[in-house]
């Protein structure tokens, strides 16, 4: 996968090992589980099945944001995502008795949303061909190797960082965008994302790796540290010193 990536060429690397810190390990999406209250979802589902339509409204309120974001990730435009979101909830209402509680309600609902969105994408002949997939996979190499600013919000402010993230997500090829949004934006476990997209776990993990590297590349141009003026002078002086040494050695015939 990373054939052309090697640590032999480190000329453009900021090699200050003191800046290395342990990576923030992604925690399993406990945050999402608390926020969603899967037990509450089940109670609401029971109430809908027993004829309480207000309970369905509560379910919609709890999940409309996620369903819209996921359909937007698959389709890439708001108009289609809106239609897919509406169709998702209509279908969920009509088929709620088929929810077997083998997975969380959120997973079941999101699978409907993804299917609705994929059908729309196919209907608009906006499918991703195998060639496009292969091309996208070939392009995923970590090209940038500059460190980033520690706190981007100090540089740009919350709103701008949020817009940068949205823009970067939009720039991903669809197969990576949907995987990234499910796993890293909506917090589904990799196994759940695989179930929702109808893919194997290794396929999801492979796409997730590429999606994360592409996201990193997309954000890098705005977040990389610019070498300070004094550092640039030192680098330039070092290069000039080396050139002078080479010229001198050539002059004395060595």
């Amino acid at each position: 996968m990373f054939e052309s990536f090697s640590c032999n060429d480190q000329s453009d690397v900021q090699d200050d090992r003191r800046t290395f810190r342990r990576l923030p390990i992604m925690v399993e999406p406990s945050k999402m589980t608390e926020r969603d209250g899967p037990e509450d979802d089940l109670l609401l589902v029971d109430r809908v099945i027993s004829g309480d339509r207000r309970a369905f409204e509560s379910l919609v309120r709890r999940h409309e944001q996620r369903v819209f974001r996921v359909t937007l990730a698959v389709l890439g435009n708001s108009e289609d995502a809106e239609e897919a979101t509406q169709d998702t909830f209509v279908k969920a209402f009509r088929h709620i008795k088929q929810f077997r509680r083998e997975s969380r309600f959120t997973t079941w609902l999101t699978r409907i949303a993804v299917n609705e969105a994929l059908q729309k994408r196919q209907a608009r002949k906006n499918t991703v061909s195998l060639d496009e997939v292969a091309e996208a996979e070939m392009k995923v190499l970590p090209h940038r190797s500059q460190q980033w600013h520690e706190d981007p919000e100090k540089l740009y402010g919350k709103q701008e960082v949020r817009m940068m993230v949205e823009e970067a997500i939009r720039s991903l090829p669809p197969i990576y965008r949907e995987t990234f949004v499910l796993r890293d934006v909506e917090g589904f476990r990799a196994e759940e994302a695989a179930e929702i997209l109808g893919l194997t776990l290794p396929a999801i993990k492979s796409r997730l790796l590429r999606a994360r590297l592409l996201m990193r590349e997309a954000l890098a141009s705005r977040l990389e540290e610019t070498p300070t003026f004094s550092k640039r002078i030192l680098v330039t002086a070092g290069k000039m010193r080396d050139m002078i040494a080479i010229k001198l050695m050539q002059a004395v015939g060595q």
Partner: protein
Amino acid sequence: MAMLDCKEVLDNLSNYIDGEGSDVLRKAIELHISRCGRCRVVFDTTGKMLKIVTDAEPFEVPLAVSARLYARLEKVLAEE
């Protein structure tokens, strides 16, 4: 465990960030990135990217979109 090369380390980047992989593999990755500046930056900045995405406030559904959703559902539920 034998020393990993850059390709092997990057192939395992996502799993490492998610806290997966055996202790032996994770230690081998940590040994590599302690010695390889380029991989270290890729690992570190990918972690930072995920933190930025996690910390960013999620995109909100526009109010008009939400209103049209409820209008359609009200109609469908009334018909069912």
